[in-house]
């Protein structure tokens, strides 16, 4: 432990924000790059399952809302890549890691969107879980990340309300719509709980990240908060959460819930989810087929610069 390390930790403890030019431990930088990149990749890959329903949105109002939402996600990707770049890694490097299958993104986006209700469920549950994770990041010790998260969270919480409102329309709709909503909740509930990551006793790096104030709450705490917030919402929708063990614990005031089956989650992490291959291939295809466009833009910019030079010269 060097003097630098000690001073750094003092700044963290004093809730000082660390800025790009400040000294920081390599581990802190590495952890942040990995986490911010993973978050950025998730936004970009997350455009795919929702984008899947834009052309089939059932009303023009919903279509516009979904377009706007997916566009916001692209925007989040942009801020987050920029935040990562302040740590000395380029967006292209990060994208290459994603396309090479070396970087992670949220496993939730390896599930398919099978019905329109899934667009509601993603807003309500997936964005809801994301917000639980992300709100504390607005106070993350690394300044650029914390500031990006403020904007991200504001928009995400709008998306979450929109998703819930979409579910409400289905839940109050025809029997078929209600069935669609319930089916969707059945499929997305457990994967949403898994978004918080493994139980605290299984989770590596947690202590150090807490000390560095990159992480402020444990996975299990955040998961519990999510369950507590979401169960009453499901009740209001008149939908049933697919967990026979779910019940309010009168003593703790929290909802107890059943054991999570991590088998499928682990398979998805290994690349065996229903859509892992398709998601990455879609991103790779876009990148590869766009190569000539990016080259043309570069070539044109060079030509233009040369012409400007001539004019000036």
């Amino acid at each position: 432990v060097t003097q630098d390390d000690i001073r750094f930790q003092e700044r963290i403890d004093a809730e000082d924000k660390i800025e790009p030019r400040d000294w920081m431990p390599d581990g802190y930088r590495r952890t942040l790059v990995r986490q911010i990149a993973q978050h950025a990749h998730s936004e970009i890959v997350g455009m795919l399952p929702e984008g899947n329903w834009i052309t089939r949105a059932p009303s023009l109002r919903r279509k516009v809302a979904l377009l706007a939402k997916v566009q916001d996600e692209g925007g989040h990707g942009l801020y987050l890549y920029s935040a990562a770049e302040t740590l000395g890694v380029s967006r292209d490097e990060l994208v290459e890691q994603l396309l090479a299958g070396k970087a992670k993104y949220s496993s939730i986006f390896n599930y398919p969107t099978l019905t329109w209700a899934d667009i509601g469920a993603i807003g309500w549950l997936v964005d809801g879980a994301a917000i639980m994770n992300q709100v504390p990041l607005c106070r993350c010790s690394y300044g650029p990340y914390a500031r990006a998260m403020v904007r991200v969270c504001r928009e995400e919480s709008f998306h979450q309300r929109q998703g819930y409102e979409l579910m409400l329309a289905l839940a109050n709709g025809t029997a078929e719509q209600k069935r669609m909503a319930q089916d969707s909740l059945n499929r997305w509930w457990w994967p949403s709980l898994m978004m918080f990551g493994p139980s605290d006793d299984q989770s590596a790096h947690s202590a150090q990240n807490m000390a560095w104030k990159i992480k402020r709450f444990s996975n299990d705490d955040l998961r519990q908060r999510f369950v507590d917030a979401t169960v009453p919402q499901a009740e209001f929708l008149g939908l049933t959460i697919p967990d026979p063990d779910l019940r309010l614990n009168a003593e703790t005031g929290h909802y107890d819930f059943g054991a999570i089956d991590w088998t499928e989650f682990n398979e998805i992490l290994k690349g065996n989810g229903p859509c892992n291959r398709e998601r990455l291939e879609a991103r790779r295809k876009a990148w590869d087929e766009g190569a000539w466009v990016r080259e043309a833009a570069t070539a044109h910019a060079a030509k233009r610069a040369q012409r400007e030079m001539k004019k000036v010269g």
Partner: protein
Amino acid sequence: MSNDTQQALFGYALRLGDTSLVLGHRLSEWCGHAPELEEDIALTNVALDLVGHARLWLAYAGEVEGKGRDEDRLAYRRDVFDYRNHLLVEQPNRDFGHTIVRQFLHDSWAVELYDRLTASTDATLAGIAAKAVKEVRYHVRHSADWLIRLGDGTAVSHAKVQDALDRLWPYTGEMFESDAASATLAAAGIAPDPLELRAAWNARIAEILAEATLSRPADGWMQKGGLRGEHSEHLGFLLAEMQFLPRAYPDATW
């Protein structure tokens, strides 16, 4: 409003609404698949604007028609032969250059039209145009900039956009097609005669193609039919996908 004028105005609002909607649909197919993140956002943004315009035009069409059809009823419950969009905008996506060319040819028309429609004697039409024209000005800047970049980029990009231009050119004649309905609207000062837009469109095309080092294709035989509901084979597939939910669940509201 005379019966003729009302009919003409209904058809006109459909033409603008359908054209915006179908082009917005095509652009939205790019979502998540564009050559770079900034373009993913930009294309989605243009799609968003276009679907927004479609809502306004179709809502107004329904109002003019006076049979209680709202924007969704018109968008989701008409089959191909009742769609009035230009054939240009239903042409399927090929590469990004093709999308840019299609967009530029359309935007160059739309910006001239909307600009003139702000002076329509029909207050609703003028109001919609005044709102939309600001966005369309941005669209044409965006598509023109990309056309220049790609035309005056690499040999590969030049060849690709020139090919797209040659392919799409026969669909541009339709934008300037007049008929009895457009004559009625022009006489009433509601909408300009479509032919009136041609000179300004030509001028912009000439300017941007020159900067993009691209050749303007010859004005040969032009494809027509969209305005009387005779489309290409592509529109039916687009509508089948777009309209699935309201057709499958006719009693639902969403």
